[in-house]
Protein backbone atom coordinates (compact mmCIF):
# COMPACT_ATOMS: atom_id res chain seq x y z
CA UNK A 1 0.00 0.00 0.00
CA UNK A 2 2.17 2.80 -1.25
CA UNK A 3 1.53 6.26 0.02
CA UNK A 4 -0.13 8.38 -2.62
CA UNK A 5 1.98 11.30 -1.57
CA UNK A 6 0.33 14.67 -1.50
CA UNK A 7 0.21 15.70 -5.11
CA UNK A 8 -2.66 18.16 -5.10
CA UNK A 9 -5.33 17.92 -7.74
CA UNK A 10 -6.08 14.42 -6.51
CA UNK A 11 -7.76 15.91 -3.45
CA UNK A 12 -10.21 15.28 -1.93
CA UNK A 13 -9.05 11.69 -1.85
CA UNK A 14 -11.85 9.17 -2.14
CA UNK A 15 -11.73 6.68 0.68
CA UNK A 16 -13.77 3.51 0.86
CA UNK A 17 -15.25 2.67 4.25
CA UNK A 18 -16.25 -0.84 5.30
CA UNK A 19 -19.99 -1.44 5.16
CA UNK A 20 -19.78 -3.69 8.19
CA UNK A 21 -17.51 -2.02 10.73
CA UNK A 22 -17.30 1.49 9.15
CA UNK A 23 -13.48 1.68 9.23
CA UNK A 24 -11.26 1.88 6.15
CA UNK A 25 -11.07 -1.81 5.08
CA UNK A 26 -7.35 -1.97 5.76
CA UNK A 27 -8.24 -1.66 9.46
CA UNK A 28 -10.99 -4.33 9.52
CA UNK A 29 -8.45 -6.88 10.76
CA UNK A 30 -8.40 -5.13 14.15
CA UNK A 31 -12.13 -5.37 14.77
CA UNK A 32 -14.20 -8.32 15.90
CA UNK A 33 -16.05 -8.79 12.61
CA UNK A 34 -13.19 -9.60 10.23
CA UNK A 35 -15.00 -12.47 8.53
CA UNK A 36 -18.08 -10.40 7.76
CA UNK A 37 -15.92 -7.46 6.71
CA UNK A 38 -13.99 -9.65 4.32
CA UNK A 39 -17.17 -10.99 2.71
CA UNK A 40 -18.52 -7.48 2.33
CA UNK A 41 -15.34 -6.22 0.70
CA UNK A 42 -15.18 -9.18 -1.65
CA UNK A 43 -18.69 -8.46 -2.83
CA UNK A 44 -18.40 -4.68 -3.15
CA UNK A 45 -14.72 -3.99 -3.90
CA UNK A 46 -13.23 -7.22 -5.27
CA UNK A 47 -10.00 -5.50 -6.35
CA UNK A 48 -9.34 -4.05 -2.95
CA UNK A 49 -10.26 -7.39 -1.41
CA UNK A 50 -7.69 -9.17 -3.52
CA UNK A 51 -5.08 -6.68 -2.42
CA UNK A 52 -5.82 -6.66 1.29
CA UNK A 53 -6.55 -10.34 1.80
CA UNK A 54 -3.88 -11.82 -0.44
CA UNK A 55 -1.57 -14.39 1.08
CA UNK A 56 1.26 -11.99 0.44
CA UNK A 57 -0.36 -9.14 2.31
CA UNK A 58 -1.14 -11.33 5.27
CA UNK A 59 2.39 -12.70 5.40
CA UNK A 60 3.82 -9.22 5.14
CA UNK A 61 1.69 -8.09 8.04
CA UNK A 62 2.87 -11.02 10.10
CA UNK A 63 6.52 -10.61 9.27
CA UNK A 64 6.63 -7.10 10.64
CA UNK A 65 5.70 -8.40 14.07
CA UNK A 66 7.90 -10.37 16.38
CA UNK A 67 6.75 -13.92 17.03
CA UNK A 68 5.61 -13.08 20.52
CA UNK A 69 3.75 -9.98 19.41
CA UNK A 70 2.13 -12.08 16.72
CA UNK A 71 0.88 -14.59 19.28
CA UNK A 72 -0.50 -11.79 21.36
CA UNK A 73 -2.18 -10.30 18.32
CA UNK A 74 -3.75 -13.64 17.40
CA UNK A 75 -5.05 -14.15 20.88
CA UNK A 76 -6.41 -10.63 21.02
CA UNK A 77 -8.22 -10.92 17.72
CA UNK A 78 -9.67 -14.29 18.70
CA UNK A 79 -10.87 -12.77 21.94
CA UNK A 80 -12.41 -9.85 20.11
CA UNK A 81 -14.18 -12.08 17.63
CA UNK A 82 -15.52 -14.28 20.43
CA UNK A 83 -16.67 -11.22 22.32
CA UNK A 84 -18.47 -9.82 19.28
CA UNK A 85 -20.12 -13.18 18.59
CA UNK A 86 -21.26 -13.69 22.15
CA UNK A 87 -22.56 -10.12 22.37
CA UNK A 88 -24.60 -10.72 19.28
CA UNK A 89 -25.92 -14.05 20.54
CA UNK A 90 -26.86 -12.43 23.82
CA UNK A 91 -28.67 -9.59 22.10
CA UNK A 92 -30.55 -12.09 19.98
CA UNK A 93 -31.55 -14.16 22.96
CA UNK A 94 -32.62 -11.06 24.80
CA UNK A 95 -34.77 -10.06 21.87
CA UNK A 96 -36.36 -13.49 21.69
CA UNK A 97 -37.21 -13.67 25.37
CA UNK A 98 -38.01 -10.06 26.12
CA UNK A 99 -41.49 -8.73 26.29
CA UNK A 100 -42.82 -5.28 25.67
CA UNK A 101 -45.64 -4.50 28.02
CA UNK A 102 -48.39 -2.09 27.14
CA UNK A 103 -50.43 -1.39 30.20
CA UNK A 104 -53.69 0.50 30.38
CA UNK A 105 -53.94 2.30 33.68
CA UNK A 106 -57.07 3.96 34.95
CA UNK A 107 -56.26 7.33 36.44
CA UNK A 108 -59.67 8.86 37.25
CA UNK A 109 -62.99 7.29 36.48
CA UNK A 110 -62.84 7.53 32.70
CA UNK A 111 -59.35 8.83 32.27
CA UNK A 112 -56.59 6.48 31.23
CA UNK A 113 -52.89 6.55 30.63
CA UNK A 114 -50.98 3.90 28.75
CA UNK A 115 -47.59 2.76 30.01
CA UNK A 116 -45.12 1.00 27.74
CA UNK A 117 -42.21 -0.99 29.17
CA UNK A 118 -39.45 -3.19 27.83
CA UNK A 119 -38.57 -1.34 24.63
CA UNK A 120 -34.89 -1.11 25.47
CA UNK A 121 -34.40 -4.85 25.06
CA UNK A 122 -35.10 -4.37 21.37
CA UNK A 123 -32.48 -1.74 21.00
CA UNK A 124 -34.96 1.11 20.75
CA UNK A 125 -34.12 4.59 21.93
CA UNK A 126 -36.81 5.19 24.54
CA UNK A 127 -36.63 8.98 24.41
CA UNK A 128 -36.99 8.98 20.67
CA UNK A 129 -39.87 6.51 20.70
CA UNK A 130 -41.64 8.61 23.36
CA UNK A 131 -41.30 11.65 21.13
CA UNK A 132 -42.64 9.68 18.17
CA UNK A 133 -45.63 8.48 20.20
CA UNK A 134 -46.41 12.09 21.13
CA UNK A 135 -46.25 13.17 17.52
CA UNK A 136 -48.10 10.20 16.11
CA UNK A 137 -50.98 10.31 18.60
CA UNK A 138 -50.93 14.06 19.25
CA UNK A 139 -50.86 13.53 22.96
CA UNK A 140 -48.65 13.90 25.99
CA UNK A 141 -45.88 11.31 26.10
CA UNK A 142 -43.08 11.18 28.63
CA UNK A 143 -40.31 8.93 29.87
CA UNK A 144 -40.20 8.00 33.55
CA UNK A 145 -37.86 5.82 35.55
CA UNK A 146 -39.42 2.69 36.99
CA UNK A 147 -38.49 1.16 40.32
CA UNK A 148 -36.09 -1.72 39.85
CA UNK A 149 -34.31 -0.04 36.96
CA UNK A 150 -35.26 0.78 33.42
CA UNK A 151 -37.60 3.34 31.97
CA UNK A 152 -41.14 3.38 30.73
CA UNK A 153 -43.07 5.63 28.43
CA UNK A 154 -46.32 7.07 29.71
CA UNK A 155 -48.78 8.21 27.10
CA UNK A 156 -51.93 10.17 27.92
CA UNK A 157 -55.09 8.37 26.86
CA UNK A 158 -56.23 4.83 26.24
CA UNK A 159 -54.03 3.93 23.30
CA UNK A 160 -53.07 0.30 23.95
CA UNK A 161 -54.28 -1.03 20.60
CA UNK A 162 -52.95 1.91 18.60
CA UNK A 163 -49.54 1.60 20.22
CA UNK A 164 -49.45 -2.12 19.56
CA UNK A 165 -50.19 -1.50 15.88
CA UNK A 166 -47.71 1.31 15.70
CA UNK A 167 -44.87 -0.73 17.22
CA UNK A 168 -45.44 -3.72 14.95
CA UNK A 169 -45.65 -1.48 11.88
CA UNK A 170 -42.67 0.70 12.69
CA UNK A 171 -40.30 -1.88 14.12
CA UNK A 172 -40.62 -5.11 12.14
CA UNK A 173 -37.78 -6.58 14.21
CA UNK A 174 -40.09 -6.80 17.20
CA UNK A 175 -42.19 -9.98 16.98
CA UNK A 176 -45.83 -9.33 17.75
CA UNK A 177 -45.90 -12.28 20.13
CA UNK A 178 -43.45 -10.46 22.33
CA UNK A 179 -45.85 -7.62 22.97
CA UNK A 180 -48.38 -7.96 25.70
CA UNK A 181 -51.33 -5.70 26.43
CA UNK A 182 -52.61 -5.67 29.98
CA UNK A 183 -55.09 -3.70 31.99
CA UNK A 184 -54.47 -2.32 35.39
CA UNK A 185 -57.47 -1.18 37.34
CA UNK A 186 -55.82 -0.09 40.48
CA UNK A 187 -58.78 2.06 41.54
CA UNK A 188 -60.76 -1.04 42.38
CA UNK A 189 -60.37 -1.03 46.10
CA UNK A 190 -61.96 -3.88 47.96
CA UNK A 191 -65.28 -2.68 49.22
Amino acid sequence: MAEASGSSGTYPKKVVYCGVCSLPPEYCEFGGTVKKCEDWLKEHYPKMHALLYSQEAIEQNMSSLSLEAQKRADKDSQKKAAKAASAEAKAQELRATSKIMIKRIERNKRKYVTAVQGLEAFGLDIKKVAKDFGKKFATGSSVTKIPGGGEEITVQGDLSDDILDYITDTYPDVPEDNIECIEDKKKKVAA
Partner: protein
Amino acid sequence: MFKKDATPGAKSKVKSSAQRAIRAKVLEEYPKLEPYIEEIMPKKEQLDLVKLPDRVSLYTLNNHPLFFQHMDDSFLPHLTLVHKYPSCFNRLRIDRGAIRFVLSGATLMVPGLTSAGGRLPDDDEDEEGIYGGGEDGMEELEAGTPVVIEAEGKENACFVGVLKMGTEEMKKVRKGQACEAGHYLGDGLWTLNLG
Protein backbone atom coordinates in the same frame (compact mmCIF):
# COMPACT_ATOMS: atom_id res chain seq x y z
CA MET B 1 -11.65 11.66 24.43
CA PHE B 2 -14.42 9.68 22.79
CA LYS B 3 -13.99 6.25 24.32
CA LYS B 4 -17.67 6.03 25.07
CA ASP B 5 -20.40 6.15 22.48
CA ALA B 6 -21.66 9.68 22.25
CA THR B 7 -25.06 11.02 21.38
CA PRO B 8 -25.03 14.38 19.69
CA GLY B 9 -26.54 17.18 21.74
CA ALA B 10 -28.17 20.37 20.58
CA LYS B 11 -27.36 21.52 17.07
CA SER B 12 -27.22 25.20 16.24
CA LYS B 13 -26.30 27.34 13.27
CA VAL B 14 -22.94 29.06 13.37
CA LYS B 15 -23.20 32.82 12.79
CA SER B 16 -21.34 34.00 9.73
CA SER B 17 -18.98 36.12 11.83
CA ALA B 18 -18.13 33.08 13.93
CA GLN B 19 -17.80 31.02 10.79
CA ARG B 20 -15.19 33.44 9.46
CA ALA B 21 -13.29 33.26 12.73
CA ILE B 22 -13.29 29.45 12.63
CA ARG B 23 -12.01 29.45 9.10
CA ALA B 24 -9.17 31.81 10.05
CA LYS B 25 -8.24 29.71 13.07
CA VAL B 26 -8.27 26.50 11.06
CA LEU B 27 -5.98 28.02 8.45
CA GLU B 28 -3.67 29.38 11.11
CA GLU B 29 -3.33 25.89 12.59
CA TYR B 30 -3.26 24.05 9.24
CA PRO B 31 -1.86 26.45 6.59
CA LYS B 32 -1.54 23.62 4.08
CA LEU B 33 -5.34 23.47 3.89
CA GLU B 34 -5.41 26.89 2.20
CA PRO B 35 -5.94 25.58 -1.38
CA TYR B 36 -8.87 23.45 -0.24
CA ILE B 37 -10.56 25.54 2.44
CA GLU B 38 -13.21 26.84 0.07
CA GLU B 39 -14.31 23.31 -0.81
CA ILE B 40 -14.11 22.20 2.83
CA MET B 41 -16.06 25.12 4.32
CA PRO B 42 -17.56 27.14 1.48
CA LYS B 43 -18.08 30.76 2.54
CA LYS B 44 -21.68 30.71 1.42
CA GLU B 45 -22.71 27.54 3.20
CA GLN B 46 -24.01 27.14 6.71
CA LEU B 47 -21.83 25.46 9.32
CA ASP B 48 -23.56 23.82 12.24
CA LEU B 49 -22.31 23.43 15.77
CA VAL B 50 -23.15 20.16 17.52
CA LYS B 51 -22.55 19.94 21.25
CA LEU B 52 -20.92 16.73 22.41
CA PRO B 53 -20.29 15.40 25.92
CA ASP B 54 -17.33 16.70 27.95
CA ARG B 55 -17.45 20.19 26.47
CA VAL B 56 -16.52 19.22 22.96
CA SER B 57 -17.91 21.25 20.08
CA LEU B 58 -18.20 19.60 16.70
CA TYR B 59 -18.53 21.68 13.54
CA THR B 60 -20.40 20.05 10.69
CA LEU B 61 -21.43 20.93 7.16
CA ASN B 62 -24.58 19.23 5.89
CA ASN B 63 -24.23 16.68 8.69
CA HIS B 64 -20.65 15.85 7.73
CA PRO B 65 -18.21 16.35 10.59
CA LEU B 66 -15.28 18.68 9.82
CA PHE B 67 -13.52 19.87 12.97
CA PHE B 68 -13.96 19.44 16.68
CA GLN B 69 -12.72 21.44 19.61
CA HIS B 70 -12.46 20.69 23.31
CA MET B 71 -13.26 23.91 25.20
CA ASP B 72 -10.88 26.50 23.74
CA ASP B 73 -8.17 24.08 22.63
CA SER B 74 -7.00 23.75 19.04
CA PHE B 75 -9.41 22.79 16.32
CA LEU B 76 -8.76 19.17 15.40
CA PRO B 77 -9.85 17.61 12.12
CA HIS B 78 -12.29 14.70 12.05
CA LEU B 79 -10.59 11.60 10.62
CA THR B 80 -12.81 11.54 7.54
CA LEU B 81 -11.43 15.00 6.69
CA VAL B 82 -7.87 13.81 7.31
CA HIS B 83 -8.48 10.91 4.94
CA LYS B 84 -9.50 13.35 2.21
CA TYR B 85 -6.56 15.74 2.64
CA PRO B 86 -3.83 13.67 4.32
CA SER B 87 -0.80 15.76 3.38
CA CYS B 88 -2.30 18.96 4.78
CA PHE B 89 -1.58 17.90 8.34
CA ASN B 90 1.53 17.22 10.39
CA ARG B 91 1.92 13.48 10.31
CA LEU B 92 3.75 10.83 12.32
CA ARG B 93 3.54 7.07 12.02
CA ILE B 94 3.19 4.25 14.52
CA ASP B 95 4.42 0.71 14.02
CA ARG B 96 2.01 -2.07 13.26
CA GLY B 97 2.07 -3.43 16.79
CA ALA B 98 0.71 -0.17 18.22
CA ILE B 99 -2.33 -0.04 15.96
CA ARG B 100 -4.57 -2.29 18.00
CA PHE B 101 -3.84 -0.37 21.17
CA VAL B 102 -4.62 2.97 19.58
CA LEU B 103 -7.84 1.55 18.13
CA SER B 104 -8.93 0.37 21.54
CA GLY B 105 -8.52 3.84 22.98
CA ALA B 106 -5.22 3.39 24.82
CA THR B 107 -2.88 6.35 25.15
CA LEU B 108 -0.42 6.57 22.28
CA MET B 109 3.01 5.68 23.66
CA VAL B 110 6.37 6.92 22.40
CA PRO B 111 7.87 3.46 21.62
CA GLY B 112 5.19 2.99 18.95
CA LEU B 113 6.75 5.96 17.14
CA THR B 114 10.44 5.37 17.85
CA SER B 115 10.53 1.68 16.88
CA ALA B 116 11.60 0.49 13.43
CA GLY B 117 8.08 0.64 12.00
CA GLY B 118 7.35 4.08 13.46
CA ARG B 119 8.22 7.42 11.88
CA LEU B 120 9.23 10.69 13.52
CA PRO B 121 10.32 13.85 11.67
CA ASP B 122 13.55 13.63 9.65
CA ASP B 123 13.62 9.84 9.62
CA ASP B 124 16.18 8.36 7.20
CA GLU B 125 13.77 5.66 6.17
CA ASP B 126 11.10 8.17 5.29
CA GLU B 127 12.27 8.67 1.72
CA GLU B 128 9.34 10.78 0.63
CA GLY B 129 9.69 13.08 3.62
CA ILE B 130 6.05 12.92 4.56
CA TYR B 131 6.41 12.60 8.32
CA GLY B 132 7.02 15.65 10.47
CA GLY B 133 6.27 19.37 10.33
CA GLY B 134 7.00 22.21 7.93
CA GLU B 135 6.79 22.32 4.16
CA ASP B 136 9.17 19.41 3.62
CA GLY B 137 7.96 17.37 6.55
CA MET B 138 11.37 17.44 8.18
CA GLU B 139 10.81 19.79 11.08
CA GLU B 140 10.53 18.55 14.61
CA LEU B 141 7.17 19.09 16.30
CA GLU B 142 6.75 20.61 19.73
CA ALA B 143 4.55 19.45 22.56
CA GLY B 144 1.08 20.93 22.14
CA THR B 145 1.04 20.55 18.34
CA PRO B 146 -1.91 18.77 16.74
CA VAL B 147 -0.77 15.69 14.82
CA VAL B 148 -2.27 13.05 12.62
CA ILE B 149 -1.05 9.51 13.23
CA GLU B 150 -0.72 7.11 10.36
CA ALA B 151 0.24 3.46 10.70
CA GLU B 152 2.83 1.10 9.28
CA GLY B 153 1.47 -0.66 6.21
CA LYS B 154 -1.72 1.42 6.14
CA GLU B 155 -2.65 4.20 3.81
CA ASN B 156 -5.13 6.05 5.98
CA ALA B 157 -4.58 7.72 9.34
CA CYS B 158 -5.99 6.13 12.49
CA PHE B 159 -5.63 8.86 15.10
CA VAL B 160 -5.75 12.62 15.59
CA GLY B 161 -4.52 14.29 18.75
CA VAL B 162 -2.21 16.76 20.41
CA LEU B 163 1.42 15.92 21.19
CA LYS B 164 2.20 15.57 24.86
CA MET B 165 5.94 15.41 24.24
CA GLY B 166 8.01 17.10 21.54
CA THR B 167 9.37 14.81 18.83
CA GLU B 168 12.96 15.72 19.56
CA GLU B 169 12.56 14.64 23.16
CA MET B 170 10.85 11.43 22.05
CA LYS B 171 13.95 10.47 20.11
CA LYS B 172 16.03 10.96 23.25
CA VAL B 173 13.92 9.32 25.92
CA ARG B 174 12.11 6.74 23.74
CA LYS B 175 9.40 6.13 26.32
CA GLY B 176 6.36 7.70 27.94
CA GLN B 177 3.12 9.06 26.58
CA ALA B 178 3.24 10.62 23.15
CA CYS B 179 -0.20 12.14 22.79
CA GLU B 180 -3.09 13.44 24.81
CA ALA B 181 -6.34 11.54 24.42
CA GLY B 182 -7.67 12.18 20.95
CA HIS B 183 -9.90 10.88 18.20
CA TYR B 184 -9.31 7.40 16.77
CA LEU B 185 -10.93 5.16 14.18
CA GLY B 186 -14.05 3.54 15.61
CA ASP B 187 -14.39 5.79 18.67
CA GLY B 188 -17.54 7.60 19.78
CA LEU B 189 -16.84 10.53 17.47
CA TRP B 190 -16.27 8.21 14.52
CA THR B 191 -19.50 6.30 15.09
CA LEU B 192 -21.52 9.38 15.99
CA ASN B 193 -24.86 9.39 14.25
CA LEU B 194 -25.47 12.88 12.90
CA GLY B 195 -28.65 11.86 11.10
